[in-house]
């Protein structure tokens, strides 16, 4: 076996060392990369990509437009060397508080994941290209890995473009320049958002593997998004939590108080089953550094405390350090990684067990 002809290459070469039986011949480029490269090309030149780029651009620009007056006002109050750069993403118009970039992304970025994943495998099936693809000298999982990687790359591209667009607007039109910690926060937020969208991409990939028709896959993906993200964040999750673990209204004894706390904990657990909750919590902590000084000597120990202490009026004071913010969002990030992994593993297993013939 010509093992020396193999190029060292990350996971593949590690896999080859761990499971040498998998490799039979030298290969010059892993199959998943060839597939991913082709898929990225398809995505970037597709109408879908253009439409989504425009939609996301509008979603970012509209809140920015409404918020710019408020941001200017905020900026005029700056006394120290504190910057208000991140307010570009977290401030909306006074009347419609939800109309802010980070909320918009939380609500609509899942559509990116669904759009780039819902037809990834079933179209190969319906077009009859899947048998031809898997009869090439690649592993079957290269197909699903390559497609997932391509979706991830394109989503990252769109999100980074959006963030750069908003930042550019802030720098050029409003004259805000981010400092290092803000750049880091923004970078962490983009990573978090990519992770969040990759959950939806994995979910859409699962749909595309399990459902033969792209149309039903798209419809179900859209329906689940409406149900969990739109309605879920509006009232559905709260309703569910109230039904499962109602919080006692009155507390007279210590036991009553404990019961209240337990119910509240159950409620927040239920809400965190939704990736949207996890994302929103982590996103707010990353983008809105709170002010420990005006909250007394208080340093938030949990994410709830951090979010409850947030108030736009406190922007101007000193802020929570980025390390502390990252520490706070860590459980949320792990939760999102776990959900994404479970989704992708499900898609992977279903795909590997399926017969190739249609």
């Amino acid at each position, binding site marked *: *076996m010509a093992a020396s002809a193999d190029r060292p290459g990350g996971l593949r070469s590690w896999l080859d060392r761990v499971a*040498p*039986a998998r490799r*039979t*011949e030298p*290969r*010059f*480029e892993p*199959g998943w990369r*060839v*597939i991913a490269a*082709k898929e990225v090309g*398809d995505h970037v030149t597709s109408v879908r990509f253009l439409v989504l780029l425009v939609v996301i651009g509008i979603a970012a620009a509209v809140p920015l437009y409404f918020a710019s007056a408020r941001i200017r006002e905020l900026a005029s109050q700056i006394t120290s060397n504190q910057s208000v750069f991140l307010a570009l993403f977290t401030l909306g118009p006074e009347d419609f508080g939800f109309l802010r970039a980070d909320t918009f992304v939380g609500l609509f970025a899942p559509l990116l994941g669904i759009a780039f994943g819902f037809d990834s495998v079933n179209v190969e099936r319906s*077009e*009859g*290209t*899947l*048998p*031809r*693809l*898997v*009869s*090439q*000298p*690649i*592993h079957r999982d290269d197909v699903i890995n390559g497609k997932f990687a391509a979706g991830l790359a394109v989503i990252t591209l769109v999100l980074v473009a959006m963030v750069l667009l908003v930042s550019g607007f802030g720098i050029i039109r409003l004259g805000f320049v981010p400092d290092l910690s803000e750049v880091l926060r923004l970078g962490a937020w983009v990573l978090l958002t990519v992770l969040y969208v990759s959950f939806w991409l994995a979910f859409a990939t699962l749909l595309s593997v399990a459902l033969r028709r792209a149309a039903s896959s798209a419809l179900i993906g859209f329906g689940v998004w409406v149900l969990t993200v739109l309605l879920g964040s509006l009232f559905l999750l709260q309703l569910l939590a109230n039904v499962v673990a109602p919080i006692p209204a009155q507390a007279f004894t210590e036991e009553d108080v404990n019961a209240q706390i337990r119910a509240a904990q159950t409620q927040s657990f239920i809400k965190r089953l939704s990736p949207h909750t996890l994302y929103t919590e982590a996103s707010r902590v990353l983008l809105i550094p709170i002010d420990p000084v005006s909250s007394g000597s208080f340093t938030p120990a949990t994410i709830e405390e951090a979010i409850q202490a947030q108030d736009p009026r406190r922007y101007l004071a000193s802020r929570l350090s980025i390390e502390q913010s990252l520490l706070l969002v860590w459980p949320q990030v792990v939760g999102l990684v776990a959900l994404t992994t479970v989704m992708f593993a499900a898609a992977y297993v279903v795909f590997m067990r399926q*017969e*190739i*013939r249609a």
Partner: protein
Amino acid sequence: MTASSGDGRPGRPLRAKPLRARRPVVDPPPPASDARRPQAIAVADDTPAPDTNEPTAAEIGDAVIFARGLTKRYGTFTAVDNLDLAIRPGEVFGLLGPNGAGKTTTVLMLLGLSEPTEGFARVVGLDPAREPIAVKRRVGYLPDAVGFYGGMTGRDNLRYTARLNGLPRPLAESRIDELLSDVRLTDAADRHVETYSRGMRQRLGIADALVKDPTVLILDEPTIAIDPAGVDEILALLRRLVAEHNLTILLSSHILGQVQSICDRVGFFSAGRIVAQGRLEELRKLAGGGAIAFEVGADGDPAAIEGVLRGVPGVSDVAREPGDRPRWVVHAHHDIAAALTGALSAAGHSIDHLRRRGEDLLEIYRNLVPEERDGRVG
């Protein structure tokens, strides 16, 4: 741990065999495959039960495609039942049978795209279930109802296949040019595949299967849904490719008449089993039981004609066929076509029909598989 380490027989040569494999003392030589797993690894992990029934090199011989007892079951349904197959280098083998007979399942098992429930397959000396990548590197496959990425040009579709096969770019480009001209698609090469006709797609599919420069070509229904002229063109193309590339071809079809002209040997598939296989002449004999039948039609008094036919030496039986035009089936033990025409014209009857039965595969097939008379095979 090897078989010889603890068995107290120092004279026995050291062989890396699991202890459980109770094989005869005289072991047949291992299959002539260089890419098999190192035997030390096969000993190290005990999970794959050593199968003493593995085909031996002597059994496989020079067969490019070999199967023994190959079986695929889905629950209680047996798609492929105990299939034996041996295709020699340079041979064109036709796997013939109606839809749902298990042809595609067989092909998928040979490519390692589907795991056999039982039995063994060897393609170019490799086990497709264990080394699918190595097999797929050497085998070109044209799937049933082949599909292409419609938004890409024909050439780009082939480029993608070339990249998946790890071909260096210059080699890929020259080979793609060559193949496109072979399948007469050079002019359409830079058009999107969605503008291609069915026949063009099929020809592109053949080019696609050849991009990797395979030693074996597996074609699943290469002539399906194509008009007669297109079928002739594809068959001519295949004939030329066999000659030029020295390929071994396994093709499956349910339209017997279309592929009989290029098959060296055929296997008739019915309900997951090969009911007969061999060269066409052999199958004809098998189907006819050594007897020959002629269809005869002639002008004149039917009774007189029947009398003339019965009088020809060598005729064993004459039967009147139902229908508006008088037709007879004449059974004989050897070829008496010349004697029949001679006798009829001598008696003043002009012949309007004379045909030897069992000439085409459809009739052979019907004789061999009596239950398939519902016309699906036609």
